[in-house]
């Protein structure tokens, strides 16, 4: 059973400047009595008192201004940061797609990068070898997979990363912004695959600024503000609060139709679908 539970979790980053990070300061600091070594290190409270319970099938959009703690929250949910205070429990195989430049070696081929990413996400070599054809077909990179990654455009890297995570059946999929770099045609393809993935007993948390993308993938949303969960609920309500207007109001009929809403339900209805 896939789930993420977080209880009153806080994430505080100690900011060591060059001086407080040295042993000398720590040793000398002891002489003066109770000048705590930790107490003198400035702390950035990136997340404050977060409580969440995400279950199987949850498709959560993550919104908030820059620096509101979206990426840090995603890393908390991935288990990369363990909360400084409070608790977290993650059950399930996590596949994060965060910064696309990292975890990929620019000098080695796309194929090798697929391999390494897969291994990092808990697959074996054999399992990955079986999936390579599938990934190469999905990403449409073809012979480019033999080229070193530095020759790839941003969009091609996104394709590669998405290809890997969607091929390995992760139970928890965490996507940060930046996925928007792919073109519309590929996005449509990825959308089907992601949706399919979420349907197969998964959990998706997706940080994104585009209403359209969020409405497409998610049904609930979390609004982060200054390291706290400001609002958590249905996607449409959260977006309405966050933006100050109903996201459907400013969409063309075309967009609505593509998203699978008919304009009449939107106009008459409240609350998403």
């Amino acid at each position, binding site marked *: 059973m896939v789930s993420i*539970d977080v209880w009153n979790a806080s994430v505080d980053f100690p900011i060591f400047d060059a001086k407080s990070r040295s*042993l000398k300061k720590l040793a000398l600091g002891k002489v003066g009595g109770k000048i705590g070594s930790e107490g003198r290190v400035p702390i950035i409270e990136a997340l404050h008192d977060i409580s969440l319970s995400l279950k199987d099938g949850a498709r959560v959009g993550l919104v908030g201004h820059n620096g509101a703690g979206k990426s840090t929250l995603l*890393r908390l949910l991935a288990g990369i940061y363990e909360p400084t205070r409070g*608790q977290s429990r993650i059950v399930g195989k996590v596949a994060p797609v965060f910064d696309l430049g990292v975890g990929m070696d620019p*000098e080695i081929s796309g194929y090798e990068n697929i391999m390494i990413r897969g291994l*990092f996400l808990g697959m074996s070599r054999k399992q990955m070898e079986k999936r390579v054809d599938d990934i190469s077909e999905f990403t449409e990179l073809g012979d480019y997979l033999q080229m070193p990654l530095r020759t790839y455009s941003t969009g091609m890297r996104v394709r590669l990363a998405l290809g890997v995570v969607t091929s390995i059946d992760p139970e928890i999929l965490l996507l940060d912004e930046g996925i928007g770099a792919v073109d519309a045609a590929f996005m449509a393809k990825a959308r089907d695959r992601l949706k399919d993935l979420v349907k197969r007993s998964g959990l998706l948390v997706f940080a994104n600024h585009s209403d359209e993308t969020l409405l497409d993938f998610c049904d609930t949303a979390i609004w982060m503000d200054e390291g706290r969960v400001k609002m958590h609920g*249905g996607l449409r309500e959260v977006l309405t609060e966050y933006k100050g207007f109903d996201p459907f109001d400013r969409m063309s009929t075309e967009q609505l139709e593509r998203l699978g809403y008919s304009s009449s339900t939107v106009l008459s209805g409240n609350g998403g679908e």
Partner: protein
Amino acid sequence: MQAPSTLDSPEAPPAVKSRSFKRAFADVREAWDHRELWGHLGWQDIKQRYRRSVIGPLWITISMGTTALALGLLYSVLFKTEVATFLPYVTVGFIVWNFIVGCVTEGTDVFIANEGLIKHLPAPISVHVMRMVWRQVLFLLHNLVVYGIVLAIFFTSLNHEYRIGESSPLQPGLSWTILLAIPGFVLLAVNAVWVSLLFGVISTRFRDIPPVVNSFINLVFFMTPIVWDAGVLSRVTGGGDGDWRMLIAELNPVYHFVEVVRAPLLGHTVDWHHWAVVGGFTVGGWALAMVILRNYRARVSYWV
């Protein structure tokens, strides 16, 4: 209104504590289960380093060969010993030393260098340590080619009883005991893992440690019997009453680690006390590393 996952306040906090030996052991165990990952990454590191060079990893072997040759010739002249036995001695000592120094210096840097991976992909932190130690093992395997060549050249001087210096004990010469180098090296590698775990975590928090280690490691090289033979220590004092000078070597843990691998490869007898010291360090060191891992494992991703 649908809300499959809302703020329905979760019940009691789970019993899993972040700081527990269970989590520390789990980290090491999971890292071991990921051996396909670090095994692959270690190879990748070597291939990467020599990607566009013509003879590639052969450079590792060549540089070791020239260094061993030069040092062996120089010091056999300085100490007036026979080249045929002293050159293999220096070569093997230097190969083992290279492994140790690689593990220690890169160990201090192991988490700092992997900052990106640590912050972006969830994995046990010991994975990075094992990748680094594995890479050093691969370097050592490349260097063993030099050992093979040296052995082939000087085999006739090593396959019977011989001594390195005048005051050194008589050594039995090469025999099946060469196989003892395998358990010796396994112990050395196991120790390399805890050393870099320990130094890695501390260095991530205190960035002064890597430069300190880097400057002291050279001193350790000269203090360790690698380009000189431990027997020399008793010779300069003229025998028996100079035993305290042996402490220069005996108190240096690196000496014992070098000895358990080097001695079998040269057909020397390994004194039992070397095994005892190495065994003691294995147990004590891992215990210390587990305590550090228990307390600071979760902090590493904050510190890098």
